[in-house]
């Protein structure tokens, strides 16, 4: 067949001045800019586009838009390979490579079409019935076999090379759909000054007015559309978004939309995303999403060459392509009969118009007369003949006799279904219209109105008038004054229709859902087996569950079910539509936030310094903290950490602790407020002093711990753990605003303001003396353990000094404004050179707190009480505080509760593992004998063996006992000795110097 043999001489919106080329299954074909892959294939006489999902039947092109169930292709190669794209929405570009799917070894000769012969086992419920037993075979045998046979497309294994963006847009009026109704709504709103977004999934506007080559205001629709587009472009507050599918309705006037920015290009230009995910917030929304044509279900209705009548018109009028040369037009309505006019005008022969309605109508008779073809009324197509190409239609006439009409195209129409999916995403139920024999929208989402075919108004005139009216209501709702607009003239054609869901007595398989290969027999089987409710029908047969969301099949299927169960269609009901309306790439949901940008990263003040000093970093929440600082010659992390710990224990080390949450609490009631927050007293804290504190949840479980420093009568400075900084701040605001609203206290986060460093070790004071400016005295008399003071360092830099210790050594925490953080770290280490000071990271920090028996996130884990971790005595009995009452529940005071103790391996050479469970010796390893678990472990450089903290039933009474640390998950079972959780300096002498 010759090039462009099915391309008409004139017509369509394609650019005939340019010829581009694309590849389909390795063959090169010509096309014009403005073609879709489907129109270009048809223009080249390529009818066969793919094989079907289950039976591998040859399939062509059914539709011309995103409802297409059959023509699914794989696009591009390499990392950009994309399966299951609809040829009907893919814009052809020069060099496009497309491949058919579900065929092996070739599209024309497919081994798997043997599945057709096995059809009886592929019926509804097949998956449930066939692969029940043994379950072990499912992963290894059944699923791979089904996938190979069912031939899902192949996704690329490479990372997605493209960029995606996620944006938010706001408008007064969102218009979904750029057909005549949508254009009228948009231009009406725009003229009043409203902010308008018009989104259309196609790459050019006009909708069915272009598809049907309608006449508006006495000019070709394309011309009228151009004029409206030009006018919309004039309004600075109007955004026209082409290639944009609104895929979901969400609460509060929020809509999700996907803009395909570069899918029509070989690859996205530099800096340009492939797709944009839009969150559109609209005060009012006009749904003008049009309608989807219904097929009629008859024997072998999936043959290539059986096409929706509206799609035939689209290919002729929009693309200048003739989908066939000899056509049978098979309709149950007036509107679709006009397809015959378009066919004849484009040079095809119409063999007959087959109208299922006895007597037909004046409108159809007029068409038949004008085009000079026979009209068979009360007749139906019962079979489509041919294998890979359509050869004929078997028609049964009103009298019941059959004849075969030779044809290469059956243009069929069973009427239209308004595209109302977006009206149902918030729970609105579609309503059955007896008059229109279709579902229309029910209760609409707040702020939404519907116009044009989406509202069941199928005539062009109705769409134009309705669009203008709805646009006017929307702009008025947004507070704009309507401007007088002339309504363009258009004809009001008849859309009279008499339902026909399936043809009785058809021959061969009659497909309802072509994408998932669901036939009328499957629906009958589902009915017989009791899966009659529409939601059951859907899941049992998989009807409507493919990428087309059943847009050409759902209504037919439930109508057939209604017939079978002798119920009405409203009684049968409609399946629930959920977002997304059209497929959305996962990359578009992620936008910028992938790979290293998956979440933001917080850098502590000394980050750059630590990086240049070879730190190994660890993610703690969003923070990137130094884990340890390896030195040349050190073989592993343990060696580095051991050195860091020994340096702190013997001399002095420095650690960035800026990530701790820091909260300024100020006000006349600051003291009384903190007394409510912490389980221990804070009002009694003297000015210039610090205190360790714990706060509980209201249920008596530990929430967080930290230090409280009193800087003034009405001024406290509180620290939280790194992990809980946000949670604690929220908790304090909750208590301040909601529980005790009369407290006069203010809470201000100061986490980011201060770079805070722990300076720990016996030489810490000597080091700090070199840093702290002259007038400030940090002797032990002036600055004892738990003292806090404001001073200056390094020649006048503002600083706060806290004498606190997490390591158990004499230690300080010193903070300076964050901008000096990096330089201050360097200054501290320079001052520490004479002591061989070193920086240390979170690993050494963790080791030393375990050696000292301090609790951390592993112990404050959402299940422990103060008593569990040995802090029960700290709880005040004299005041009310959060967690006070419920902390006294009998279950929480049970002496049998696992309680914090220390552990060391009986064989000191063995390592310990956190997560191991404790068992008394000689008992069976069952849950009833579980005595608790190991929370934290470390190799103690100070003791020279592994140590651990853990929660053990009646732990403190079992000091000296040997128990098993049992970890079947990692195959580990060790005898450990129960010891005090404080492994070093039990008397706490070292912190005081």
């Amino acid at each position, binding site marked *: 067949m010759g090039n462009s043999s099915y391309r008409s001489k004139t017509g369509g919106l394609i650019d005939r001045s340019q010829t581009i080329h694309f590849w389909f299954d390795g063959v090169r074909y010509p096309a014009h800019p403005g073609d879709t892959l489907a129109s270009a294939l048809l223009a080249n006489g390529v009818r066969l586009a793919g094989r079907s999902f289950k039976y591998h039947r040859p399939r062509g092109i059914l539709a011309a838009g995103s409802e297409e169930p059959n023509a699914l292709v794989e696009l591009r190669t390499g990392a950009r390979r994309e399966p299951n794209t609809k040829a009907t929405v893919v814009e052809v570009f020069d060099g496009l490579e497309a491949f058919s799917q579900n065929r092996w070894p070739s599209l024309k000769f497919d081994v798997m079409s043997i599945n057709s012969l096995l059809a009886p086992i592929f019926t509804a419920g097949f998956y449930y019935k066939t692969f029940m037993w043994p379950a072990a075979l499912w992963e290894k045998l059944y699923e791979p076999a089904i996938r190979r046979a069912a031939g899902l497309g192949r996704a690329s294994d490479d990372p997605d090379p493209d960029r995606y963006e996620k944006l938010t847009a706001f408008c007064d009026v969102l218009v979904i759909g750029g057909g005549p109704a949508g254009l009228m709504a948009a231009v009406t709103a725009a003229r009043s000054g409203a902010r308008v977004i018009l989104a259309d999934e196609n790459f050019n506007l006009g909708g069915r007015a272009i598809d049907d080559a309608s006449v508006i205001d006495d000019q070709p629709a394309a011309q009228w559309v151009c004029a409206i587009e030009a006018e919309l472009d004039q309004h600075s507050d109007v955004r026209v978004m082409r290639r944009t599918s609104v895929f979901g309705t969400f609460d509060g006037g929020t809509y999700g939309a996907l803009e395909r920015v570069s899918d029509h290009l070989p690859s996205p230009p530099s800096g340009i995303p492939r797709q944009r995910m839009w969150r559109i917030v609209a005060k009012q929304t006009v749904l003008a999403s049009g309608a989807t044509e219904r097929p009629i279900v008859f024997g072998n209705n999936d043959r290539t060459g059986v096409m929706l009548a509206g799609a035939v018109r689209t290919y002729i009028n929009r693309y200048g392509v003739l989908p066939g040369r000899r056509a049978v037009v098979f309709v149950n309505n007036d509107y679709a009969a006009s397809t015959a006019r378009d066919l004849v005008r484009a040079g095809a022969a119409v063999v007959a118009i087959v109208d299922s309605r006895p007597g037909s109508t004046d409108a159809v008779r007029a068409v038949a007369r004008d085009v000079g073809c026979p009209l068979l009324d009360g007749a139906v197509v019962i079979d489509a003949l041919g294998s890979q190409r359509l050869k004929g239609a078997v028609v049964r006439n009103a009298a019941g006799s059959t004849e075969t009409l030779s044809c290469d195209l059956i243009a069929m129409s069973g009427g239209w279904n308004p595209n109302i999916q977006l009206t149902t995403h918030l729970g609105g139920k579609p309503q059955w219209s007896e008059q229109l024999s279709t579902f229309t929208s029910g209760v609409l989402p707040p702020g939404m109105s519907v116009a044009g075919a989406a509202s069941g108004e199928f005539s062009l005139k109705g769409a134009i008038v309705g669009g203008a009216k709805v646009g006017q209501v929307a702009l008025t709702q947004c507070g704009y004054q309507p401007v007088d607009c002339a309504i363009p003239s258009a004809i009001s054609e008849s859309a009279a229709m008499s339902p026909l869901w399936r043809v009785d007595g058809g021959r061969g398989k009659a497909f309802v859902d072509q994408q998932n290969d669901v036939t009328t027999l499957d629906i009958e089987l589902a009915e017989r087996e009791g899966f009659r409710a529409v939601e059951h029908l859907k899941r049992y047969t998989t009807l409507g569950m493919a990428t087309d969301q059943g847009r050409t099949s759902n209504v037919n299927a439930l109508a057939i079910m209604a017939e079978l169960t002798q119920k009405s269609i409203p009684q049968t009901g409609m399946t629930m539509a959920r977002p997304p309306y059209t497929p959305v790439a996962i990359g578009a949901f992620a936008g910028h936030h992938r790979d290293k940008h998956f979440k933001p990263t917080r850098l502590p003040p000394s980050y750059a310094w630590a990086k240049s000093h070879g730190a190994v970093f660890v993610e703690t929440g969003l923070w990137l903290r130094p884990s340890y600082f390896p030195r040349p010659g050190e073989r592993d992390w343990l060696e580095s950490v051991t050195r860091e710990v020994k340096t702190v224990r013997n001399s002095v080390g420095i650690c960035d602790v800026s990530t701790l949450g820091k909260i300024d609490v100020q006000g006349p009631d600051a003291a009384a407020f903190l007394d409510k927050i912490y389980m221990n007293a804070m009002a009694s804290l003297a000015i210039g002093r610090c205190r360790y504190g714990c706060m509980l949840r209201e249920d008596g479980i530990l929430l967080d711990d930290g230090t409280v420093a009193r800087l003034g009568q009405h001024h406290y400075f509180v620290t939280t753990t790194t992990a809980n900084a946000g949670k604690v701040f929220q908790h304090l605001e909750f208590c301040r605003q*909601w529980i005790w609203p009369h407290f006069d206290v203010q809470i201000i986060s100061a986490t980011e303001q201060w770079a805070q460093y722990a300076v720990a070790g016996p030489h810490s004071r000597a080091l700090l003396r070199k840093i702290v400016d002259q007038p400030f005295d940090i002797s032990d008399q002036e600055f004892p353990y738990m003292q806090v003071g404001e001073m200056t360092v390094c020649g006048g830099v503002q600083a706060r000094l806290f004498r606190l210790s997490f390591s158990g050594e004499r230690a300080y925490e010193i903070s300076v404004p964050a901008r000096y953080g990096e330089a201050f770290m360097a200054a501290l280490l320079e001052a520490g050179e004479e002591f061989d000071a070193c920086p240390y990271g979170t690993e050494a920090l963790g080791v030393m707190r375990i050696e000292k028996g301090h609790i951390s996130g592993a112990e404050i884990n959402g299940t422990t009480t103060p008593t569990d971790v040995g802090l029960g005595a700290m709880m005040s009995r004299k005041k009310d505080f959060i967690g006070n009452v419920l902390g006294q529940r009998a279950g929480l005071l049970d002496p049998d509760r696992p309680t914090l103790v220390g552990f060391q391996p009986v064989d000191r050479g063995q390592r310990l593992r956190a997560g191991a469970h404790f068992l008394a010796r000689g008992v069976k390893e069952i849950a009833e004998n579980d005595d608790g678990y190991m929370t934290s472990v470390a190799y103690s450089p100070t003791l020279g063996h592994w140590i651990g903290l853990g929660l053990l039933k009646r732990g403190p009474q079992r000091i000296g006992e040997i128990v098993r640390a049992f970890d079947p998950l990692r195959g580990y079972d060790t005898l450990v000795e129960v010891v005090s959780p404080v492994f070093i300096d039990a008397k706490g002498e070292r912190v005081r110097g």
Partner: protein
Amino acid sequence: MRITCPYCGNRSLDEFLYHGDAEPQRPDATADNAMDAFVSYAFERTNPPGQHHELWYHEAGCHAWLVVTRHVSTHAISSVDIARDLAKARTPNTAGRA
């Protein structure tokens, strides 16, 4: 969903954190039945369909706690109040300073 913060204006749901029912009030810890009252306060919820008064925190905004009146079936929000103002009106000033 969108919530109109009385301070910041109409904002997207992802700026807010949901806390829970705004009906239960923290009981008097010194009362004889304090334990029962606290158990009810902390754990017992009825969750009927219809309008709920809920506590939300404008975490990414002004940090105000809000009482949002929301229909839990339709998500329709009928009012948003400032939690601290409601709480002040509800309780006499006995908790704070003399």
